[in-house]
């Protein structure tokens, strides 16, 4: 067993370990990649196989791969696997490769029987022993890091070994970086953080490298905010200033001499602009901040200066970072290793230009009343952090909700910037997604229909039908009314199945276990059934629908969430009010009407293309998929598809995510996203 736990040979506990192994084999909890809805669409009955759904990788001991999977999904899956506690196993169903994951403990075809067989094998392996004397380490390539050394003052100085900075002589500090991507793009970050619940605290980065000075106006608090015209900072509302006005703004440096001068006379000073001084309280004319009172402590500071000055005959060299380090001869600071700099006679601390924002923060505090050394100031701590709409300044956290998040479609990434538990901003994406079936050249029409169906595992029928219709229009062939009727009835069956899958996901999201179970079971029974079977299942489906309509608080819970304006580009299921509750009832209604549509049908089958021969032409078709209107424009040349333009509902609907969830509470935001029923397979990666 590859993911076994380590143990010693013939230990005292080995009889107990045997019992534990057999118990573990009874408690299989799986993380489905990409998600449970794809397992459902493939007809996998997880509860029947005794597999529970894990809330996250930490609670799983089986990684169930529904192949084939995109490279990005496999990368995310490898991270999830690395997070799973031992003993852990990989179960791969279907055809396809899955590196960088380790070899699968069990494989099988992508059918319910295949799942049963493979799970049985997993249980056997586990029961034989989840402990091994020798285990293999697994490192997800995406998580591999290496230590590099960088100068705290000059981030552009990077070295593989510890040493000193060639520019300033400071000791280089170790820093962890990813080995896989040299240029970290936001997307890689999303993948890296996928399913890893580590809070990455976002603090505004100080723009050390923004030396190119193209911007004319800049925010004194947020150096990354730059503008060509004067105005206010969008983050904190301060007046933007010209960089040359605030001397050395990029480093928040404050010349000590200016500080000292102001302390002699002025009682109030701007925390950002020490040259702005006043005898009365008020606001800074440059940035609008309140002036702060200057203290006697400042006098002591000044006293220090004079002592510096008086000792300057003896002390000629000092550290730019640690003014208390004074030496007679040039050399290096014993504290930080920087080269000592010669003190000029007029006591100008030239070194401060390179002293960076850290020191700027301290200088800012040097003059405040009653501050003890080492006092942590709120001003300093929240310096540069963004401000919430309610005016509170907090640390925002960025957390990934996907690609394997319970209650959201698997493969969809949703990275939320959270202020407390309020969503500030969302970044959405898909780790799987549209691949042009024509990327290897023109395809025969029938092959194109099949390829498009495989591309869309969550709505195969609808997209096959779309391709068929578009090609038939292009080939000027038309299906007979009987075939049309069968197609519509099959589409209705897929709509029922799709909505049932969505209901199961909603049940999981809201903690309605019974709904989650029953909707999933019904999906498995309906999704490939013939009309007679569906007829027989109708009472059971109707019972679920009426139970959902009667569930206390459910409609009310959904009604306050996800309201779309009438102008929104929404063409999915909707009723008179386009809230999450409206879409929920609309889906329930669609299930009921689709059941009626199937009633008259003689048989149901996936749409196949009528014979178009070697036709040439162009065709356009639209199909109301379970998620909304999809359209396809196709160009046919002698029976082969040469170009195709596909527009899917999820492409339009994903743009609605941000306006729907901004400034909403986290739980509401997740319900709102789920109510859109996005399919990551319909999105561009």
């Amino acid at each position, binding site marked *: 067993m590859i993911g076994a736990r380590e143990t010693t040979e013939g230990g005292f506990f080995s009889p107990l370990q045997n019992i534990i192994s057999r118990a573990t084999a009874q408690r299989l909890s799986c993380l489905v990649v990409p998600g449970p809805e794809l397992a459902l669409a493939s007809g996998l009955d997880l509860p029947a196989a005794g597999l529970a759904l894990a809330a996250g990788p930490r609670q799983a001991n089986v990684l169930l791969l529904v192949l084939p999977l995109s490279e990005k999904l496999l990368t995310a899956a490898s991270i999830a696997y690395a997070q799973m506690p031992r003993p852990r196993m990989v179960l791969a169903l279907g055809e396809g490769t899955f590196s960088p994951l380790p070899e699968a403990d069990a494989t099988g075809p992508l059918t319910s029987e295949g799942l049963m067989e493979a799970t049985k094998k997993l249980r056997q392996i586990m029961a034989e022993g989840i402990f091994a004397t020798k285990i293999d380490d697994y490192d997800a390539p995406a998580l591999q890091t290496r230590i590099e050394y960088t100068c705290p003052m000059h981030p552009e100085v990077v070295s593989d070994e510890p040493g000193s900075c060639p520019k300033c002589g400071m000791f280089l500090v170790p820093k962890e970086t990813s080995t896989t991507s040299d240029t970290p793009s936001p997307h890689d970050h999303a993948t890296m953080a996928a399913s890893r*619940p580590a809070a990455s605290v976002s603090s505004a980065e100080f723009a050390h490298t923004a030396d190119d000075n193209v911007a004319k106006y800049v925010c004194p608090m947020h150096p990354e905010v730059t503008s060509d015209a004067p105005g206010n900072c969008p983050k904190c509302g301060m007046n933007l200033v010209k960089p040359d006005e605030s001397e050395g703004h990029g480093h928040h440096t404050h010349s000590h001499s200016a500080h000292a001068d102001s302390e002699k006379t002025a009682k109030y000073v701007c925390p950002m602009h020490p040259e702005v001084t006043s005898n009365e309280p008020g606001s800074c004319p440059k940035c609008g901040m309140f002036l702060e009172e200057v203290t006697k402590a400042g006098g002591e500071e000044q006293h220090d200066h004079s002592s510096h000055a008086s000792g300057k005959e003896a002390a000629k060299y000092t550290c730019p970072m640690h003014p208390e380090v004074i030496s007679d001869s040039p050399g290096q600071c014993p504290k930080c290793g920087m080269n000592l700099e010669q003190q000029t006679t007029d006591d100008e601390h030239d070194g401060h230009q390179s002293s960076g924002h850290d020191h700027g923060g301290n200088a800012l505090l040097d003059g405040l009343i009653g501050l003890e050394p080492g006092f942590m100031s709120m001003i300093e701590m929240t310096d540069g952090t963004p401000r919430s709409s309610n005016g509170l300044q907090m640390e925002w956290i960025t957390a990934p909700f996907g690609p394997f998040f319970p209650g959201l479609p698997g493969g969809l990434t949703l990275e939320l910037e959270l202020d407390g538990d309020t969503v500030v901003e969302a970044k959405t994406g898909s780790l799987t997604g549209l691949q042009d079936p024509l990327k290897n050249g023109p395809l025969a029409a029938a092959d194109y229909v099949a390829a498009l169906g495989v591309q869309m595992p969550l709505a195969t029928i609808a997209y096959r039908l779309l391709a068929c219709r578009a090609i038939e229009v292009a080939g000027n062939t038309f299906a007979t009314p009987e075939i049309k009727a069968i197609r519509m009835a099959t589409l209705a069956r897929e709509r029922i199945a799709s909505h049932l899958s969505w209901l199961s996901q909603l049940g999981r999201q*809201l903690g309605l276990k019974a709904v989650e179970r029953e909707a999933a079971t019904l999906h498995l029974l309906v999704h490939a059934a013939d009309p007679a079977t569906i007829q027989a299942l109708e009472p059971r489906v109707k019972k679920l629908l009426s139970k959902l309509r009667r569930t206390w608080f459910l409609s009310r819970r959904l009604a306050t969430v996800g309201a779309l304006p009438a102008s929104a580009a929404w063409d999915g299921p909707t009723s008179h009010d386009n809230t999450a509750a409206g879409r929920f009832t609309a889906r329930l209604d669609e299930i009921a009407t689709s059941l009626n549509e199937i009633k008259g049908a003689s048989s149901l089958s996936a749409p196949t293309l009528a014979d178009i021969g070697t036709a040439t032409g162009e065709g356009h078709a639209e199909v109301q998929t379970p998620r909304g209107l999809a359209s396809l424009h196709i160009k046919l040349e002698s029976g082969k598809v040469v170009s195709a333009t596909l527009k899917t509902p999820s492409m339009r609907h994903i743009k609605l995510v941000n306006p729907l969830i901004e400034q909403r509470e986290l739980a509401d935001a997740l319900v709102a996203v789920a109510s859109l029923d996005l399919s990551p397979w319909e999105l561009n990666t």
Partner: protein
Amino acid sequence: MSAVLLILALTVGVYAVAVLEDWASHNRLRLLGPVISTLALLGQESVLHRKNDRLFFETAPILLLVGALLSLAIIPLAPGLIVTDLATGALFFNAALAYVLVALIMAGWGPDGAYGMIGGWRFLGQLIAYAMLVVMPITTVAMRAESLSTITIVESQAQLWNIVYQPLGFVLFAIAGMAMAFVPPFDLPNAEGELAGGVEAEYTGVRRMVFRLGRMVLILSVASATTVFYLGGWLGPWLPDWAWSAIKILAVTALMLAGGRMLPRVREGTLLAWAWKLGIPLALVNIFLVGVLVLVVPL
């Protein structure tokens, strides 16, 4: 002797709660379920998160267990079968449960994960609001018994159980108790669909086992308190005292766990609005009504 009996009762009680919890979420009654789950968790690696706060991470599950156990100390199963009959027993119940809050915040903070942290802070708001709704109905129970001792409270219900004498208080206490034990639909701190497990998300292996054990004891404790304060504790005909206690406690547990599964998880905002805007005024009305009743119909 009574110490042995109490430990036995606790073990059986926690096991029964675990079976009921499994039944409520999987719809199957598996009598050996908790044993197998415990063994499986023992076999699982107990992962220590990379950027953890070790002290908080390790302490939280134990503190949850200890807090819940402490709150059980004032529950009488029969006359004389009680850990300690404190003169302030009814208030001690609420005081002990305050540690649950601390434990959950520590569990959320410890592993340095967003899900856990949000879960912990969510519970802060939840517990502060509902701790009020636990204390205020307890006040009326004590008003009738004219004592805070839990034994006296049970004896005061000899003629009429409090569920009949003060039904409003019962409803408030039951809901608040469920919120304190964060059972569905109040499982905001460890919601699966919203926080992928929240405060529990990063716990695996033995630590997770302790955490879940603490949770079971907490549920048992809330159910026992409901029984003692409102359902007449051990009082009942024919059967021995301890049997009545056991039956009532397990029935309350089953109702609590199964009933919650029928409702969608409550929104954080709604949950707090219910407590502060609706629950507390009602609890004040309850205090007034019971005050009048105690004066007019002293039963």
